[in-house]
């Protein structure tokens, strides 16, 4: 008798608590959204802003939607730094606001609709999962321009933008290849999607360009953000002999684990020097500011057109920053050469011959990969000591 009533009670409380949790989350998000936006616009303006194409006079109202807290020190932090840079660059011509920690759920659509009704005419959504909500809201608000980071669906008033993070991974690889003593370097991967696999491959190619003997090991935590798991993954790579680590996850846990173990690691997305000054070799940072500034200017002077952008070192969106003094000058020079080559287009990371780690040639001698090829990478290059999850 006790077990069945207990079970019933548990089930009841579980359901109740889920409902309670949903209600709580809903409330707190609403509050967060409205307080952030209250600063920028009284709600009464909402109806007047319904036809925003004519709102050319006065400051351009721009809103940003972040998936994490701006204090994550990584992805959302980088976006918010770019927002600040945009405000600084364009001054009174723009007025920006942001909403942070917006989940990739039905909540997102409401946040975007709120932002439209607040009179924003240029709205950036900075996470992949906002794709469908943004498409819906964009279809209903033709006068508002939408920009979606890392997505692939566009509309007349919705365009996508992304950064070539693999260029940063390649430059980090050059440093890693030169700094490793064990010839084993590691990557803590998040989720095995093409973007992350491409970054691991590029890191490997970079390391091999200076050290043909180098081997790359990979562990997956299957989450973007889980510091204890990232720590455990990093620790197991170090225990297995890796002495330089890169992570494609969102926290600084891997860098701090390397610091604790006296090994080397990199910062990712943002400059992470201060999280582990001894372990930090460099940070593969994304600078969204040039893109945001250009998009705002285009929206202002009416030249904004839908499309897809993929910016890298060339456009100033990707850089390897804060290179440590421990990196010898000749290695730094190699990184500078790569950077210069990427800038003027004389160097391509993905140029054949490239083989995958089963020995199959994926890119013929002299062939440079196009963006379609890069967008669909599902294999590890030779030198990565692991199978791609789910591959046969």
């Amino acid at each position, binding site marked *: 008798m006790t077990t069945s009533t207990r079970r019933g009670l548990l089930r009841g409380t579980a359901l109740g608590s889920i409902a309670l949790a949903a209600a709580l989350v809903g409330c707190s998000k609403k509050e967060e959204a409205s307080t952030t936006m209250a600063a920028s616009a009284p709600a009464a303006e909402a109806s007047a802003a319904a036809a925003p194409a004519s709102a050319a006079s006065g400051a351009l109202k721009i809103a940003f939607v972040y998936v994490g807290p701006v204090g994550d020190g990584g992805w959302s932090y980088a976006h918010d730094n770019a927002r600040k840079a945009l405000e600084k660059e364009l001054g009174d011509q723009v007025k920006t606001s942001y909403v942070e920690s917006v989940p990739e759920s039905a909540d997102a659509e409401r946040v975007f609709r709120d932002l439209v009704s607040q009179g924003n005419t240029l709205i950036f959504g900075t996470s992949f999962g906002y794709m469908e909500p943004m498409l819906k809201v964009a279809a209903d608000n033709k006068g508002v321009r939408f920009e979606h980071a890392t997505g692939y669906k566009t509309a007349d008033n919705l365009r996508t933008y992304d950064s070539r993070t693999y260029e940063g991974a390649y430059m980090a690889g050059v440093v890693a290849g030169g700094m490793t003593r064990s010839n084993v370097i590691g990557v803590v991967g998040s989720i095995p999607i093409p973007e992350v696999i491409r970054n691991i491959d590029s890191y490997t190619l970079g390391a091999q360009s200076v050290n043909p003997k180098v081997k790359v090991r990979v562990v997956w935590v299957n989450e973007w953000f889980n510091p204890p798991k990232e720590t455990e993954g990093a620790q*197991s790579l170090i225990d297995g002999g*890796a002495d330089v680590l890169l992570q494609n996850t969102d926290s600084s846990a891997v860098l*701090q684990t390397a610091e604790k173990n006296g090994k080397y690691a990199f910062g990712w997305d943002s400059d992470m020097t201060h999280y582990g000054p001894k372990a930090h070799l460099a940070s593969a940072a994304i600078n969204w500011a040039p893109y945001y500034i250009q998009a705002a200017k285009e929206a202002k002077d009416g030249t904004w057109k839908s499309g897809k952008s993929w910016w890298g070192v060339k456009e100033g969106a990707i850089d390897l920053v804060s290179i440590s003094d421990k990196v010898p000058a000749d290695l730094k020079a190699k990184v500078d050469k790569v950077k210069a080559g990427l800038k003027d287009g004389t160097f391509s990371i993905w140029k054949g011959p490239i083989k995958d780690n089963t020995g199959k040639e994926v890119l013929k001698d002299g062939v440079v990969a196009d963006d379609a090829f890069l967008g669909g990478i599902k294999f590890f290059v030779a030198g990565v*000591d692991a199978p791609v999850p789910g591959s046969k």
Partner: protein
Amino acid sequence: MDTYALLLAATLNAGTILAIAGMGLLINERAGVVNLGAEGMMLVAAIAGFATAVATGNDWLAFGAGALAGAVMAACFGVLVIWLNTNQYATGLALSLFGSGFSAFVGIHYTQERLGPRPHFAIPGLADIPFIGPALFRQHPMVYLAVALMVGLTWFLYRSRTGLVLRAVGESPESAHALGYPVRRIRLLAVTCGGALCGVAGAYLSVIYTPLWVEGMVAGKGWIALALTTFATWRPSRVLLGAYLFGGVTMLQFHLQGQGVAISSQLLTMLPYLATIGVLVLISRNPAWIRANMPASLGKPFFPGG
């Protein structure tokens, strides 16, 4: 060979957090109170410990702050469920939700902070023994304290008079009350101790294990610790073993991935849960095992004179 020593070392370290929190929860469950707020208590303790470590540079003060934070939260929970007779499950879940929100709120300015160099420990002499040294004797003292805690708790529950009273309160609060024991105060004390231990585990996580503070960093370890008490059929020694098993499977899956073993990591991630189910099946083969240890009044409110 050395790799396996390090794997073992990492396993003990990973299991320590679960073991300390699990044993804390065991204490209050033995007194008949289920506290589902472990995750929230650990988060608040993690930020309290981290902030203290940043301010003072002393890890042991940080553990103390974590224990205090956990104890205060647990005491509030205790007053609600023991005196005001609110539903234990709902109140525990509310405590968990409150803890994650509150820790994020007070921790906003600590995400950019970092701690000084993390200490390294080695037991002189023993640490240099091949294989055994790196595997067992280069751990943070907390790892050994967890083992000592298990021994102490086993003695307390099964050999001491106070432990007997605690168990009596969890088995039959009416009888304990009739004998003149202050059931409510004993339960509150047990809940507070449980919270303090969860707090120590949370502070160890943010100060030693993953030395940083970010929102939500406990990432489910509190829930695993809760599952662990059931998994261990409310016995301290099995809590410790279960914690090492959970830690071991997690570390093993990363280890195999790092070695390039062609097992999908998703399958490996399921291993701790498969192991739990496997052990549960083994235990339920002999129902006497689980019945004998499960506190008979677990989760039931007590009304003196009612």
